[in-house]
């Protein structure tokens, strides 16, 4: 019943996103996910995770907590050891066209121009036409690279290369964007700017975004929900709703409400002085 009333209420929000919501595009549902690598290393242990269409979810945690593994599992790049992952109502068993993964490094092809790199997905999908080309121009403009369409990656800065990678990701036309520390390779200032651009792009699209990072401020500022993970084996320690209004702005970093959320995330990570009981409770809260 509740589900019905929500579905009815949605069209009132006006146009686009509700239509997407009804079709359930961009839903991620991961249940009891376990991943054990060869040699018995348990990267993920019984993790539940979900995202609503259009939602921006961040996963934070120290290195080795299995957050990147989680993304690769959702992308269908590596097989599960246990549990199920469903995207758009279909179980993930292999890489799919409706799920796109963005890597830590831009991984552009150095022998192709920015435009050619963005056109790689339609080229591989054998639907490279004038419309695709036009869309590539638009996306390069969207990420602030108009004028650099015919420049080769070697002559682009690290931040610009990462923007090309973002445009290529959006070219796939996906429902789910998986972002694995997408701006880890660029300097702090560029990274902050790229993050805000990512937000702007996300707000214009209807895609669900799942961002992996080890930067708590970044995770909180960008997301609707922050999932805090702890390592060995990877488990969810806390799930924090971020009720800040959108569009987000860097000034929000200074707000007390924001600080509180960040502190809660820190306690979930068990980094600073926290008593055991507190974190246990957070763990029960999880997912």
């Amino acid at each position, binding site marked *: 019943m509740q589900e019905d009333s929500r579905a009815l209420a949605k069209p009132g929000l006006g146009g*686009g*996103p509700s239509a*997407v919501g009804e079709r359930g595009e961009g839903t991620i549902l991961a249940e009891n996910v376990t991943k054990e690598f060869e040699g018995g290393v348990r990267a993920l242990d019984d993790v539940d995770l979900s995202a609503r269409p*259009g939602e921006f979810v961040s996963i934070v945690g120290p290195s080795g907590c299995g957050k990147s593994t989680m993304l690769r599992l959702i*992308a*269908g*790049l590596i097989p599960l050891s246990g549990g199920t992952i469903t995207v758009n109502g279909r179980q993930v068993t292999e*890489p*799919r*066209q409706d*799920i*796109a*993964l963005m*890597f*830590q*490094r831009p*991984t552009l*092809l*150095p*022998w192709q*121009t920015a*435009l050619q790199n963005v056109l*790689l*997905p339609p*080229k*591989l*999908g054998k639907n490279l*036409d*004038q*419309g*695709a*080309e*036009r*869309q590539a*121009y*638009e*996306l390069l403009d*969207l990420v602030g690279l108009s004028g650099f*369409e*015919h*420049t*080769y990656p*070697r*002559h682009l800065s690290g931040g610009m290369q990462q923007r090309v990678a973002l445009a290529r990701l*959006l070219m*796939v*036309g*996906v429902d789910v964007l998986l972002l694995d520390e997408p701006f880890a390779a660029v300097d702090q200032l560029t990274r902050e700017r790229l993050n805000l651009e990512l937000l702007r792009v996300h*707000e*214009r*699209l*209807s*895609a669900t975004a799942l961002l992996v990072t080890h930067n708590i401020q970044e995770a909180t500022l960008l997301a609707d929900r922050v999932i805090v993970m702890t390592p060995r084996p990877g488990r969810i320690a806390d799930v924090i709703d971020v009720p800040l209004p959108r569009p987000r702005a860097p000034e929000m970093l200074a707000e007390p409400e924001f600080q509180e959320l960040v502190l809660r995330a820190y306690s979930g990570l068990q980094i600073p002085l926290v008593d055991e009981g507190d974190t246990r409770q957070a763990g029960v809260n999880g997912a």
Partner: protein
Amino acid sequence: MARKVLHALSPMRLARRLWPPLLFLAILVGLWELAIEVDYVSERILPHPKDVAVSFWELIRSDFVWDDIGATLWESVAGFVLGAALGLALAIPSGLSPVMRRMLGPYAVALQVTPRIAIAPLIIAWAGFGYSSKIWIAAIIAFFPVYVNTLTGILTVDEEAREMFRSLGASRWQTFQHLMVPGSLPVMFAGLKTAAGLSLVGAVVGEFISAERGLGVLVQQFASQLAMADAFAVILMLMFLGLLLYGVMEWLERTTVFWLHDDRLVARSRRRAARAEKKLARNGGVPPKPRPTLVGRR
């Protein structure tokens, strides 16, 4: 383009670039001349540099030497092509399939550690005294660097790029065509360059053992007659042949692996931009209608 070449050839720039190697050449020739003048070495063993130059000039004006140059050039080029083709033909399946790698790898290494010159007399026994035996010797020597470098190139293609291709749903053939081939070209070319030099070595070694024509034959004849100036002149010719092969490979590398060379990249960027501009103008200045896109869907 033309202006750039002119700029590079301007006298001042040439002088600045050329004086260090020329100075070294002058020192070398001076020491050589001095060693003969003070009778440190006999003139019969080490000829005057001037005599070498004269021999060189007379040789290239003779009729017979061009046949020898042609023979050696043909043997090394054909040997290089054959060796490189074999190297590529075995390296590509080895790079793509671990089973093939385990199957071929040990024998490629065994062939490498065997002094391949030792096989040369056998090849001459099998393939005769003509060109084909020298071509095979050159090919066997040129094979290995191409095989190893191509294999390394394929195996070191960026893992994240492969994952990206997989996540985009690329087929095996597409990944090979659009990622593996271009991705392994830079390392492959390092092997091809080495192989080009080695194929000349192979051809000359083959000629030493048994041949009717070729610069290797000439060096041997002149040396045994103690015609040292002539022998040195032939070695100079071999050097120029080597430079020619190296130059061709260098040029091929710069055009094929253009993305490692700034000047080539800039030129290509400009060309592509101009072509895109023209295409836009052809459409009457109106950009083609966009496909329904994700952008602005919300």
